[in-house]
């Protein structure tokens, strides 16, 4: 088979600029051949190299005394949680593949992130997902939504990992370009941390997992282009199919193998498959690597070196084995009926060498390929639309006269409505560790003995006291669109607030930057500003970034998506008594608001960018609410202190939909069993704020507010503690009855709980019928 000649057109088709091509020639001291060109193109794609975002990512805080493996070092970061235990977690996007084939795209996204976690030596114990789609009134959007959800369910359920939390938003800007971000968290002992480095000259390199096919050819490059109808069409031939069954076996075999100590280095074959795993492991260890493609198991006949190197067939791993211990690998992989092959060895040349039947095909300095991609400082310009956003006032927007109707409408708005249609399709309990299921502010998972990978002696090691990990994922992209910096801060703050409400102390953050085309200066501005906001937020809550993912070029023919820097935060709860949920518990409990009722320095009174303005007035504009991170931090510390003192029965943060929606959620969100909610009413009195607009009071989204319920006998203790902690503590009502009533002086809102529950619980299912 003759290979195509290297022409400028071919270079361009590979997404490389003429300057980048010159740089490649300098590195090689010659012109690359076809396979080498392919290799550079995927490794230097945004997806693998972060060439457009690396300078921005430097602004993230990445250090704390608890971090064992930091951002960018390995496939995922690792954080110490005490008693010799640690957690590994990360989020990753699979947006473009999901646009082309929602079921498989989402499924393989889950598979990919699970591999990143067990590659670190950790046993994956739970998953999260963050999703964005267009409007559910479109049949195509419904197809994408249901495909993505069943793809995630299929992979996670079959693999046997509980999917315990997530978020879903619907907005026109995502039409045709849905976002699918998947998160996974795993647990391990400190001494079990595995490295993706090709250490030990002469060590054999093993390929394990299913044979390589033509699937996902150049997926990384695909992820680094605008999504046009044409590119979607071209990618049709390249759909990766996930096999969770295979991945489960690969994981069990890898963890069993890691316990033997026979492994010198391990890395999954994710984006850019064999290419990325070979050159990165060599670059990390400062070694070289040589493989022969004729030894790589192949699924399709006549595959070219180019295809084998760039294939993104799923569920494959590269393992560098300590010389002399090959049999251990073979025995374990045979036990699990998994294919394996010895494909090469580690060298001291620093080169990534690929042969085919002994014939030299590729010879590239590994480190230059992996670490020296060009870096671009893109031009950034404030988007023109922001001027109009800032000019927006509430003048001409008349106050609401039907607050109960508004509340029902908001609760039934798919972005706010219960996501049970989604998470009931996910096994969120498997592995017997889920303590708080989807449906509260943060999910909580118990870390117990069998959460861990086994030790060499086949045991789980010394006993320890169970620990609890809390997780949430958040991003209000409308805020980010309207004010990238403030919106970035709020995304982090909301996530941290969800953790605080559940009783957890943040440990770390992982983020997924989903944006449009960075060559557009206005989009680069969104990116730059929101990253600054995220970084500020992570600093404020002492939740350093341990890793993340960048997904650019999220555009459809109508333009870019709303900037969506998804934030997932992980926290720790040591004592199960401190686990706190969002719903009201008992009749007669006192409802307390922590924080200011409304930010009176905000001329839009919290309505800018609010769900209320979007849904009721059809307006997606106005300055979003401001956030003061110092206050916010004080609030989180305060609520945790109250929880620890044992005076809090429930805690729920105010976010989308404001105080009224949050109160309603406190009344209706506890689920006892299938179709059996527990509804508990509340009477709230806000008449003292009679001078304020009702819409702002009820539906404004002023930040830094938490609703607590407290037993009457503990009210005074709670108040004393709160005041000592410098919190604003205000009794606003009482739990009980079968209605939610909010008295204001402009208007009263009162509704039967069943009337609130119905639209909230069923909105998505009905939209999907």
């Amino acid at each position, binding site marked *: 088979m003759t290979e195509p000649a290297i022409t400028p057109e071919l270079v361009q088709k590979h997404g490389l600029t003429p300057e980048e091509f010159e740089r490649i020639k300098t590195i090689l001291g010659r012109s690359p051949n076809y396979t080498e060109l392919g290799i550079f193109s995927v490794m230097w794609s945004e997806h693998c190299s972060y060439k457009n975002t690396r300078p921005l990512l430097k602004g993230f805080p990445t250090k704390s005394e608890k971090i064992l493996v930091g951002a960018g070092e390995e496939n995922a970061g690792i954080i110490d949680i005490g008693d010799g235990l640690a957690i590994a977690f990360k989020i990753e996007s699979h947006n473009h593949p999901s646009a082309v084939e929602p079921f498989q795209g989402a499924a393989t996204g889950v598979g990919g992130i699970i591999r990143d976690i067990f590659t670190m030596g950790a046993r994956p114990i739970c998953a999260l997902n963050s999703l964005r789609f267009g409007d559910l009134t479109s049949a195509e959007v419904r197809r994408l939504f249901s495909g993505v959800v069943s793809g995630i369910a299929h992979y996670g359920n079959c693999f046997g990992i509980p999917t315990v939390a997530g978020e879903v938003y619907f907005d026109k800007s995502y039409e045709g370009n849905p976002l699918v971000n998947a998160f996974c968290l795993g647990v391990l002992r400190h001494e079990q941390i595995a490295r993706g480095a090709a250490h030990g000259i002469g060590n054999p390199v093993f390929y394990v997992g299913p044979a390589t096919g033509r699937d996902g050819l150049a997926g990384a490059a695909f992820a680094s282009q605008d999504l046009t109808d044409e590119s979607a069409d071209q990618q049709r031939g390249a759909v990766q199919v996930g096999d969770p069954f295979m991945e489960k076996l690969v994981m069990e075999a890898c963890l069993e193998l890691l316990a033997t100590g026979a492994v010198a280095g391990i890395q999954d074959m994710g984006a850019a498959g064999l290419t990325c795993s070979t050159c990165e492991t060599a670059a990390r260890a400062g070694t070289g690597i040589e493989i022969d493609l004729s030894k790589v198991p192949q699924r399709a006949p006549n595959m070219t070196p180019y295809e084998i190197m760039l294939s993104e067939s799923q569920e494959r791993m590269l393992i560098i084995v300590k010389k002399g211990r090959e049999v251990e690998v073979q025995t374990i992989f045979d036990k699990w009926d998994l294919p394996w092959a010895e494909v090469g060895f580690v060298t001291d040349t620093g080169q990534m060498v690929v042969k085919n039947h002994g014939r030299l095909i590729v010879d590239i300095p590994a480190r230059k390929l992996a670490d020296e991609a060009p870096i671009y400082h893109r031009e950034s310009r404030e988007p023109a639309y922001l001027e109009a956003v800032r000019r927006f006032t509430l003048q001409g927007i008349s106050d609401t006269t039907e607050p109960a109707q508004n509340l029902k409408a908001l609760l039934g708005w798919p972005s706010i409505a219960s996501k049970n249609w989604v998470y009931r399709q996910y096994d969120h309990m498997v592995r017997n560790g889920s*303590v708080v299921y989807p449906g509260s502010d943060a999910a909580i998972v118990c870390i117990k*003995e069998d959460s861990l990978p086994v030790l060499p002696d086949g045991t789980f090691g010394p006993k320890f006291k169970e620990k609890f990990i809390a997780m949430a994922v958040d991003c209000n992209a409308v805020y980010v669109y309207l004010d990238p910096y403030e919106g970035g801060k709020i995304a982090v703050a909301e996530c941290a607030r969800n953790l605080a409400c559940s009783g957890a102390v943040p440990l770390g953050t992982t983020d997924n930057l989903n944006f449009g085309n960075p060559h557009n200066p206005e989009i680069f501005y969104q990116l730059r500003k929101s990253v600054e906001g995220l970084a500020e937020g992570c600093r404020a809550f002492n939740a350093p970034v341990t890793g993340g993912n960048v997904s650019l070029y999220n555009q459809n023919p109508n333009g870019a998506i709303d900037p969506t820097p998804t934030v997932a935060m992980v926290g720790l709860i040591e004592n199960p008594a401190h686990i706190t949920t969002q719903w009201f518990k008992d009749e007669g409990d006192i409802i307390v608001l922590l924080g200011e009722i409304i930010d009176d320095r905000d001329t839009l009174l919290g309505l800018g960018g609010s769900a209320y303005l979007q849904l009721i007035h059809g307006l997606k504009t106005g300055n979003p609410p401001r956030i003061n991170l110092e206050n916010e931090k004080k609030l989180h510390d305060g609520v945790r202190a109250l929880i620890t003192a044992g005076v809090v029965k429930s805690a729920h943060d105010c976010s989308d939909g404001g105080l009224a929606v949050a109160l309603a959620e406190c009344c209706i969100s506890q689920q006892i*069993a299938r179709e059996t909610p527990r509804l508990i009413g509340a009477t709230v009195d806000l008449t003292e704020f009679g001078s304020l607009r009702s819409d702002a009071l009820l539906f404004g989204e002023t930040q830094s507010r938490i609703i607590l319920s407290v037993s009457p006998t503990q009210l005074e203790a709670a108040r004393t503690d709160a005041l000592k902690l410098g919190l604003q503590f205000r009794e606003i009502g009482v739990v009980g009855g079968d209605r939610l009533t909010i008295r204001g002086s402009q208007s009263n809102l009162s509704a039967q709980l069943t009337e609130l529950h119905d639209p909230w619980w069923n909105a998505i299912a009905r939209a999907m019928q």
Partner: protein
Amino acid sequence: MNFAVLQFPASNCDQDAVHVLKNVLGHSVRLVWHKDLSLGSVDGVVVPGGFSYGDHLRTGAIARMSPIMQAVQQFAANGGTVLGICNGFQILCEAGLLPGALIRNRSLQFRCEHVYLKAATRRSGFTRAIPSGQVLRVPIAHGEGCYFADESTLKTLQAKDQILFQYTTAEGQITDAANPNGSLLNIAGICNERGNVAGLMPHPERASEGLMGSTDGRLVFEGWLQELAERKRPLAA
């Protein structure tokens, strides 16, 4: 007691079953690999939940061909007690150890949520510890849990008291609305004629500790343990 928990490729509730039998109930448990030919000496066998062989072809279809299933057949034929949970129930049906089959939920969707159940009989070891009339709250997590059997099989199940669990409302009513998957007669679990092999779709092992939100599932294991203890006790002289 000594229990064996089978482990097929992609069993994924195996550890959960071990955890409950060992750490919660204090018995000794061994994982038994699907390629093994023998169960060793055990008092009871759990066929755990999961997606054996990725649910490829049909749930449980390939797992039942595993070498260990011969030993399970033998164990059951000798009167040993076997409990299949979720995928384990599917495997036991495929293996012919239990009548009927489990097909796709009528919603066509996977469902993970707590449901209400009632024991339809207390004759079985798996239901004897459940106070009569008590409604249990136990989670399900399956895509193919709709129990199907032809009419004559259903008649036999009823006649021989083989229906163990039925889906109910919170009040214990057997209604169509309380049926999460379309199972005939709201069947959630059954046993064989002899009563020593049982299967159910809900996960009692996920409802055995307060921290996990319900302890109702423990009753299933406790009854089983009582029965095993009685068997072990030499007949009173």
